[in-house]
């Protein structure tokens, strides 16, 4: 791994190269057409080839030049935020806006430093109430406040 002097060049190059190759494999099935009458495959292939070129240049560059610091990614905040958004998307229609907001806020509260469950819960309830007021009552957007899970039927 000591050959990689510029990890940010190396990894971004790999990403560009990966997307480029993947796009070529996909777009190879689309009719290419000619320069005069371009098919739907022409432009994507053109862009993908250029993307591969950029990717390879970056990977090549990563072996030379000034060494830079290693790239550090903090996985925890990233994963927690994504988990919160997924929970929101999954529950929004079934459980409704109120519950989805509470879930999102309670989950992402764990992303930074120390987790304070009580403070998070208070913030969650306040935000849920505020958002219902702003988006549903004031702006009149079509959002279920409480979803079908709360459609109790006693008859």
């Amino acid at each position, binding site marked *: 791994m000591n050959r990689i002097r510029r990890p940010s060049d190396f990894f971004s*190059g790999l990403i560009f190269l990966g997307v480029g190759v993947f796009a070529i494999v996909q777009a190879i099935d689309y009719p290419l057409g000619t*320069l005069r009458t371009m098919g739907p495959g022409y432009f994507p292939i053109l862009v993908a080839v250029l993307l591969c070129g950029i990717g390879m240049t*970056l990977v090549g560059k990563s072996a030379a030049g000034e060494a830079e610091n290693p790239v550090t990614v903090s996985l925890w905040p990233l994963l927690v935020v*994504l988990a919160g958004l*997924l929970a929101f998307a999954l529950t929004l229609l079934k459980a409704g806006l109120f519950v989805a907001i509470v879930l*999102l806020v309670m989950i992402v509260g764990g992303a930074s430093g120390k987790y304070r469950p009580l403070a998070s819960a208070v913030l969650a309830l306040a935000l849920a109430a505020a958002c219902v007021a702003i988006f549903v009552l004031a*702006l009149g957007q079509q959002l279920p406040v409480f979803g079908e899970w709360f459609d109790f039927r006693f008859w």
Partner: protein
Amino acid sequence: MDILANITLGLGAAITPSNLLYCFLGCFLGTLIGVIPGIGPTATIALLLPITFTLEPTTALIMLAGIYYGSQYGGSTTAIMVRLPGQAESVITAIDGHEMAKQGRGGVALATAALGSFFAGTVATILIAVSSPLLTRVALSFGPADYFSLMVFALLASVTVAQGSVIKAIGMILLGLMVGNIGTDVTSGTHRFTFGALALYDGINIIAVIMGLFGVAETIRNIERHRVMPVIAGKITSLMPTAQDFRNMAGPILRGTGLGSLLGILPGGGALLASFASYALEKRVARDRARFGHGAIAGVAGPESANNAGAQTSFIPMLTLGIPSNAIMAMLASAMIMRGITPGPRVMTDQPVLFWGLIASMWVGNAMLLILNLPLIGLWVRLARIPYHLLYPAILVFCAIGVYSMSSSTFDIYVMAAFGLCGYVLMKLDCEPAPLLLGMLLGPLLEQNLQRALMLSRGDLMTFIERPISATLLAVSVLSLLLVALPHVRRKREEALQD
């Protein structure tokens, strides 16, 4: 007299009670969010975009423009009163503005910023009103080949003035073009890169991408930075600049306005670049350079005027040519497209009320900010103190609701989350997200114009060189790339962007 008639038409649209109200709301909310440390204008607009969905187009654009300069104003308030490391948008104002605040002259710095911005905004508004009809006439004579070259020029030029590696920025543009390909091809009806998923047939929603890149990814990056508590500088005693202050700020404001107006029109230009350039210029022309960095009023007046002028004139290429020059204009362009208005030369002729109303509202908005903000500074400073761990959940909630309410599809929330992930990882690899957005927005147009140009020329590539406009634009694009590639210029460019 045409201009006068147009401005009257615009003022008529801008000062209807509901448009005035939304202009005010935009300025107010923009400042409110913009004041929060770590949230720049781009993120502020991304966050507040959903609020405008239910409004009619003219009102929505007026509000969005208000949000834009409101957020800039909020950013400079934070820069002057609160010191936070690593905030790109108003880093220049912070250098001397915060020093002034520490010397108890924070109020004067804020007043200088407000006055400079107002003056620059007024001049830039007139400039837009005068130059837009001319540019529109030019744009209407463009053929497909010219448009293609213009877009190539806009994309490449935006890369050369941006921060960071040029190769990576070109990679990001291409990545954006690739994302723009997703969906049903307009000419042939072929489904490209849809993987059989119905949700992808209409392509990827650009607003979801914007919220992912500038809302979610930015938030993750801010959480990770282990935010330090901001340092608030002294109390505000007097807002009124002295006679000496007025004399010291007049020159920088004039120079900043000129420089900013010019840089705002360039692709990739806009507010940020303008303030950097103005600071460098002021430092060069100043008789007493030692004062810079120790509370020189010129270091606030120049960049603040330049930044507002640049913000305003960056509307010109978007409104007249349909080519957004930076991420913020790309967002406003998407907001227009969402309502069925294609940004470009036809807007002025087909939607004169929208066009001139927007321009007039810029001036109205700037006047409002001047009146609104100075008395409210106490409130803004208190807002800037709210700890981030209370703010970021609210930001994420806003993003999630906003992106859903746009088309009532939970799929867009997943798209936003995915682009949040991509944006974060790419930012970590020193790849700025703005070129991706420009590429995604211009991708379909680039392809259509390429197809049309080559169909008209019967497949002859020479058409791009034979047409004078196209040839000039391509030549300038190649030249600017070559210039950046030269080692000497590259070093200069890094210096200029750093200091």
